[in-house]
């Protein structure tokens, strides 16, 4: 809990840095109509895909900040030497990270969905998928960052490690939204996302903790 509070406090004092992924998210989505033409039917049809790919990239971009500064200033060593189980501390840090990077996406997503002409019913589903999906992105991403935080050129490898693992989230989240947009029932996909979320929450902190130990040694 204290670590969660600390990270939120740090994020508050570094507001500008944490606003970047959000800005990036909006920018990427703006590029699509410019590239594909602004025909409303086309945009409405591909909106779920666009929003989710952009969310994936924005999540990727923000991942590095989970452990980077802690690694650089030695706080990470202190975290690993703490008397508390590292996996729990990792979970707290990932929570904090999601609150400052994932949650804002949730707030701007309705606006973007409206701009892309997504029907109202689909918007609610979109928000639900973002709510369930982005924490998974943070959890899986944390493993990748933990593996690469000690490297000088970790960025490119990070995307190679993490993006393939994002595939299931992308598939189910985008298709849930699409289902809702075309009037079908998206609940099957939503349940799958929920299952992924539970799985990621229970397994990822352990892998992340192990990877962090590897990275500081």
């Amino acid at each position, binding site marked *: 809990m204290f670590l969660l509070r600390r990270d939120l406090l740090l994020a508050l004092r570094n507001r500008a840095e944490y606003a970047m992924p959000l800005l990036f998210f909006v920018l990427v989505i703006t590029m699509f109509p410019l590239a594909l033409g602004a025909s409303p039917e086309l945009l409405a049809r591909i909106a779920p895909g666009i929003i989710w790919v952009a969310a994936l990239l924005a999540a990727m971009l923000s991942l590095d900040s989970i452990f980077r500064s802690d690694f650089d200033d030695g706080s990470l060593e202190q975290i690993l030497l703490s008397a508390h189980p590292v996996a729990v501390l990792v979970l707290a840090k990932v929570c904090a990270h999601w609150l400052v990077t994932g949650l804002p996406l949730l707030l701007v997503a309705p606006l973007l969905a409206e701009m892309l002409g997504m029907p109202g019913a689909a918007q609610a589903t979109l928000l639900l998928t973002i709510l369930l999906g982005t924490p998974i992105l943070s959890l899986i991403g944390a493993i990748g960052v933990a593996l690469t935080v000690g490297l000088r050129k*970790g960025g490119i*490898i990070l995307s190679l490690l993490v*993006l*393939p*693992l994002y595939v299931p989230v992308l598939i189910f989240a985008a*298709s849930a939204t699409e289902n809702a947009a075309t009037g079908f029932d998206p609940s099957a996909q939503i349940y799958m996302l929920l299952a992924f979320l539970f799985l990621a929450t229970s397994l990822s902190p352990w*892998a992340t903790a192990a990877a962090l130990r590897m990275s500081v*040694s």
Partner: protein
Amino acid sequence: MFLWFHKLGSPPHFYRIAGKWLPWLNWAFMILLLAGLYGGLILAPPDYQQGESYRIIFIHVPAAWMSLFIYVVMAVCGAVIIVWRMKLAEVVLISSAPIGASFTFLALITGSLWGKPMWGTYWVWDARLTSELILLFLYLGVIGLHNAIEDRRTAARAVAILALVGVVNIPIIHYSVEWWHSLHQGPTVTKFDKPSIHWSMLLPLLLMALAFQVYYVLALFHRCRAELLRRERNSKWVEEL
């Protein structure tokens, strides 16, 4: 049994044993490969639907099997590394990755070659090809991560964690992609129904699978021996060679 395992785990011992096995494996691979190719390309009858072009499955299917199998081997090594920190497992894991990536690549290439006469294009977003492509990315991630970390033992531990994470995800990715495919394209070309495959096709297929399996062990031994020499270049037993 445990003693034997322990002994095999010591680098000099493994180096010698592997060296002794190499010529035998070479022969076994040659024989199996020739038998499999002869059975597959000459003896097996042409398929009533696909004609001669189906014959590429004698390479494609075993390669795809191997691509999955090797990843599982890597994950098992990963678990051994994390629990027992066994050096030989590190060497096997690292040496397996490029072989697995090659098999995956081979499966992709042959799959798309097969796709040309079947579907009229080299690439279709078919469920199996897509998950094979993602598997290739996973392999490349393992290789990339290993190359990026200088210290070999640290690198091996990093890769071990990654392989374990990957192996948990592979079935999930596989089924997501399968599901995604059925959703977007509906049932496309149904591939061969496995149970009804005729033994004259099945036998060469199994022979080829066995040949690839032997080839994997062969390549693995070569790579492991080289990797062992590189790692232990300062130790006594290497100097004695």
